[in-house]
């Protein structure tokens, strides 16, 4: 059984945010516009955080792309009163938009603030409408949404592999963010398959996870910057 995970090399990330844009159009993420931005209500399944450390003249800036961490022990699924979010057998934390009652308990329980609420009915500019992805459902107002590791791509890849009667290959299933990264900072695959690059990179001495001490066991790893 696969255990899907991601490794993000912070040395390679140059903060271009191509992953954010790719994710947005892949997953039909609503365009909030300036109003949502000023109200702190934008939705961004993949968010490139800018972290500034130290004070002048000793300043460092680094970019940390943050999707849902797809925790192996997710605090969000435990608290959901209606089981609208749960972890599947391959470790992806899913979200059932049609069942969610919008209590936002999961969003509060998440220590990474990567669950987003639809405060308003999602709107798309005219120019975006033709490009909406038919594989991903559009969320209604009043529910929580988040990164799913482009789960729909896994289903497609699996169908294709089955049609060709061959096993799923590493390059068959790649989320939009990893695919679009121009510096190839984002690597995706099966953490339990020693042949996959993520499995090797996640054991790299530079590898760490966000807020590891909380015991959430994220499946998104980072490779620390080297000086």
């Amino acid at each position, binding site marked *: 059984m696969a255990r899907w995970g991601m490794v993000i090399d912070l040395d390679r990330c140059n903060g271009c945010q191509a992953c954010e844009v790719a994710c947005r159009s892949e997953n039909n993420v609503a365009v909030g516009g300036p109003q949502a931005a000023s109200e702190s209500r934008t939705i961004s399944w993949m968010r490139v955080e800018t972290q500034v450390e130290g004070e002048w003249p000793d300043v460092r800036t680094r970019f940390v792309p943050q999707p849902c961490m797809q925790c192996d022990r997710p605090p969000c699924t435990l608290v959901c009163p209606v089981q609208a979010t749960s972890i599947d057998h391959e470790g992806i934390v899913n979200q059932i938009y049609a069942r969610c009652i919008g209590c936002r308990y999961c969003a509060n329980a998440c220590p990474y603030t990567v669950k987003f*609420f639809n405060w308003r009915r999602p709107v798309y500019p005219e120019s975006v409408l033709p490009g909406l992805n038919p594989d991903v459902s559009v969320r209604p107002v009043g529910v929580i949404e988040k990164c799913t590791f482009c789960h729909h791509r896994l289903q497609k890849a699996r169908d294709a592999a089955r049609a060709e009667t061959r096993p799923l290959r590493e390059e068959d299933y790649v989320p939009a963010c990893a695919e679009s990264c121009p510096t190839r900072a984002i690597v995706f695959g099966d953490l339990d398959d020693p042949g996959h690059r993520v499995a090797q990179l996640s054991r790299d001495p530079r590898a760490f996870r966000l807020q590891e001490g909380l015991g959430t066991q994220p499946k998104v790893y980072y490779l620390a910057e080297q000086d």
Partner: protein
Amino acid sequence: MTDLEIVSRLPQDERMLLMPLVRTTPSFWRWAAVMAATTLWGAFAYSQQLRSGLGVTGLNTPEYWGIYIICFVFFIGISHAGTLISAILRVANAEWRRSITRSAEFITVLVIGFGAVQPILDLGRPDRVLNVVLHAQPFSPLLWDVLSIGLYFTASSIYLYVPMIPDLARIRDLGLRPRLLYWFLAIGYRDTPQARHTLERIIAVLAVVVIPIAVSVHTVIGWIFALTLRPMWHSAIFGPYFVMGAIFSGIAALIIAMAILRRVYNLGAYFKDVHFNNMGLLLLVMTVLWFYFTFAEHLTVWYGGEEAELATLYSKLTGSFAVPFWLMVACCFFVPFALMSRRATRNVAGTTLASVAVVIGMWLERYNIVVPTSLHPRGGMTALHYFPSWVELSIMAGTFSGFVLVYMVATKFFPIVSIWEIQEGREKSVEEVKQRVAAYLPDDVAAVAS
């Protein structure tokens, strides 16, 4: 004979306590109109939210919870006034309880609905609320909450109703209107010594049963916060802290209700200075307990010195939440402590003033629990401030006035002081207490030896 004439000819206890049922003053109608208008305004605000979603609130990312959740904790806290206080006083055989238990129990039953509705007002999809039953996830503290509040509402409704049966039977026998209502609610009760004995046995059992249920309700509400990993929520003290806070605000709400009832229905003979003094002493105990719990909580966070916890703590002590925080400390500790530690100010005016401060302070406490932690998520995400919108404030005003309105209406249909318990106090308890005190005194050694 009109109802008013019937009641006017009764002896003092029945006459004074049944008078609100048969005579309604113009000022009652004025206040009821104000309360009804505010409630309708709140309902209108909610219709706006229903139409366009939670976007009409001031909530944002990461301020996911706001006024509704604050009011949820606040109202359920107030509901501890009745059942818990009345049950404890009954179990403890406190004779001064007789005139205050009914008004306390009514607060519980009537406010609990306004508390329980708050999380539903807070839902993004209230149309799917039944999913909580259809797809129940037993590990969610929210589900425990639905269960414990449901149980508490059921138990406290029974606990309000059963001790009211003799009074309802008396009203039925007097033939007051609406006759069908009293005939139905009195369920054929005849006030024989045997019936009274059975009734008192049931009340004694109920009083014991409702105490752990009441404790569980606010414990679970504390756990909703404490079982997450959020800084200053993730704390073992939250269960007991919430129960203590609920009793504290409940006592204060009861004192305010007593002061108002005393004035509007001329019940000075029933809500006497001694009642306010005793309630004031209870309030004093809770004031000191509040200080102890709050100090213990904040010291633990400060001494531990974890980065994320400290960010939240300092936002309260010296940062952007310093005003609500220190106002809370003043309202929950300094004002009630100063007033309630002196006998001279433990009178009607003093206890009422202290109680108003406590109610405001306890609302602020829930604000200081919900908002600063929400705005300081782990991982240092930059956050905006939270300003409730007119919709949230209108709904809050609407639920407040809705509660006051139903309480006012309840006093027009049910005696707000238990008549039969007052009469029993006059007829039996004076003698009983005399014997009880005698039983406390040392035995005559010579007589026991022989």
